[in-house]
């Protein structure tokens, strides 16, 4: 593996390798000394063109726990706001000797361009590109599901429902492919206005109300998506927040209709009261806070697998 750009072309073997490595990384995080010398001398650049708290901090923590040097670069207050192109930013990072670039960008395909533009020598990790992909988020989701429902194995026989703003969600796209590759069945639940055009070839089912999903499927993991209001310029996606909540929100009543073993997930940040009620978010079934902790382990695994091998092999 040279880059981690999308979950669509990730093989089952590679995905399980990342999850297994993450399991070992998670174990090291329970020690008194949580820092490992593994990536000493490597430089990881966090290149963020879009706001992010948890992903950036999570990557930063992961790189630091592996002893890599971390340079944080956010587009605000940088030369990008003076009009510098992605290419010139990349060439600058290359000159600084970046071994890995973690990139978050508002444009779909930015990570691919950075990896294949011939500008950078190092590995590129996609930390979210537009409405396209967010592979480490789906890997941490898969890690969390696996830990609770299928320890040590693949996700064969597990049904995962992903509910809400699928249209704007790179988390949903990444998860549809990764979870399917791992053997899970994925059901998307969204109003027709928030289902992307051209969804037919995606390897998943689509239903249009949460109640219908709860009636039709035996759901093992319920993943609530954030309603991305900042991407809904112009409006018209649903009549009112209240109506959205009524049809797609997870409240206490719907929570109790899930099987006893089912877990509730959310990639964060949550809109409490919109897609998820406080009762559901804070219930013992909710693994939302655990997802954050797992994110560090999964990102440590990704950085290790991309950076540790032989230079010549790349």
């Amino acid at each position, binding site marked *: 593996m040279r880059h981690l750009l999308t979950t669509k072309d990730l093989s089952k073997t590679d995905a399980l*390798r990342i999850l*297994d*490595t993450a399991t*070992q*990384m998670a*174990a*090291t995080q329970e*020690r*008194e*000394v949580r*820092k*490992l*010398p*593994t990536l000493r001398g490597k430089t990881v650049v966090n290149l963020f063109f879009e706001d992010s708290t948890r992903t950036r901090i999570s990557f930063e923590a992961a790189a630091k726990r*592996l002893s890599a040097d971390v340079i944080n670069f956010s587009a605000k207050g940088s030369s990008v706001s003076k009009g510098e192109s992605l290419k010139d930013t990349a060439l600058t990072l290359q000159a600084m000797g970046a071994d890995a670039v973690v990139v978050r960008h508002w444009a779909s395909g930015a990570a691919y361009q950075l990896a294949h533009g011939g500008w950078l020598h190092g590995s590129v990790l996609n930390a979210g590109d537009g409405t396209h992909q967010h592979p480490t988020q789906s890997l941490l989701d898969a890690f969390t599901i696996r830990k609770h429902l299928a320890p040590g194995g693949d996700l064969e026989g597990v049904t995962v429902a992903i509910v809400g703003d699928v249209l704007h969600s790179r988390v949903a796209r990444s998860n549809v492919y990764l979870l399917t590759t791992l053997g899970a069945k994925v059901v998307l639940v969204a109003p027709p206005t928030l289902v992307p055009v051209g969804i037919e070839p995606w390897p998943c089912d689509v239903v249009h109300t949460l109640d219908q999903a709860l009636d039709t499927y035996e759901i093992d993991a319920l993943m609530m998506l954030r309603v991305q209001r900042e991407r809904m310029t112009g409006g018209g996606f649903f009549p009112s927040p209240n109506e959205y909540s009524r049809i797609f929100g997870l409240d206490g009543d719907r929570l109790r209709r899930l099987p006893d073993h089912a877990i509730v997930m959310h990639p964060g940040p949550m809109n409490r009261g919109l897609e998820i009620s406080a009762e559901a978010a804070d219930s013992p079934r909710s693994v939302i806070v655990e997802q954050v902790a797992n994110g560090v382990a999964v990102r440590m695994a990704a950085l*290790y*697998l991309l950076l*540790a*091998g*032989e*230079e010549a*092999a790349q």
Partner: protein
Amino acid sequence: MTGTIMGAADISRALTRIAHEIVERNDGAADVVLMGIPTRGLPIAHRLAARIAEIEPAFDAELATGALDITMYRDDLFKNPTRAIGTTSVPDTGIDDAVVVLVDDVFHTGRTIRAALDAIRDLGRPRAVQLAALVDRGHRELPIRADFVGKNIPTSRSERVDVRLEEIDGEDAVILRKGE
């Protein structure tokens, strides 16, 4: 000389002797913790622990044996294909103030043990660290020595020493092979 250097009986005798030496050196086995280095150091550690328990009935073989994966502490991570990370398990009692005996199958350059010492440091502060190896084949690249050795085997650098163990390979043998 190539071929089978040690058979099952030789390995068994060597491990019994090492178990006695560990108990003798430490005036018993009260504080001894055995940490096997995967892959093949781990079953050897379990066998040593079982033998120590026969000598010292108060020694709990299960409780006092752990696994120490050193992958993330290697100094050649960037010179070889990416390695899978193995499991590290520390006895519940921890290793602080214990006598940790590192157990490996083949003692060669000393680099594995260097990495193991670093890994130990992140897990706690033992009173002492000792090293037991089934085979010492020489060619040290670091100033590290073993405390307990099953058999010294003079080798050339190009030769390979294969340790085969019942638990993993279905048979017990130490085989010396010509290098390519």
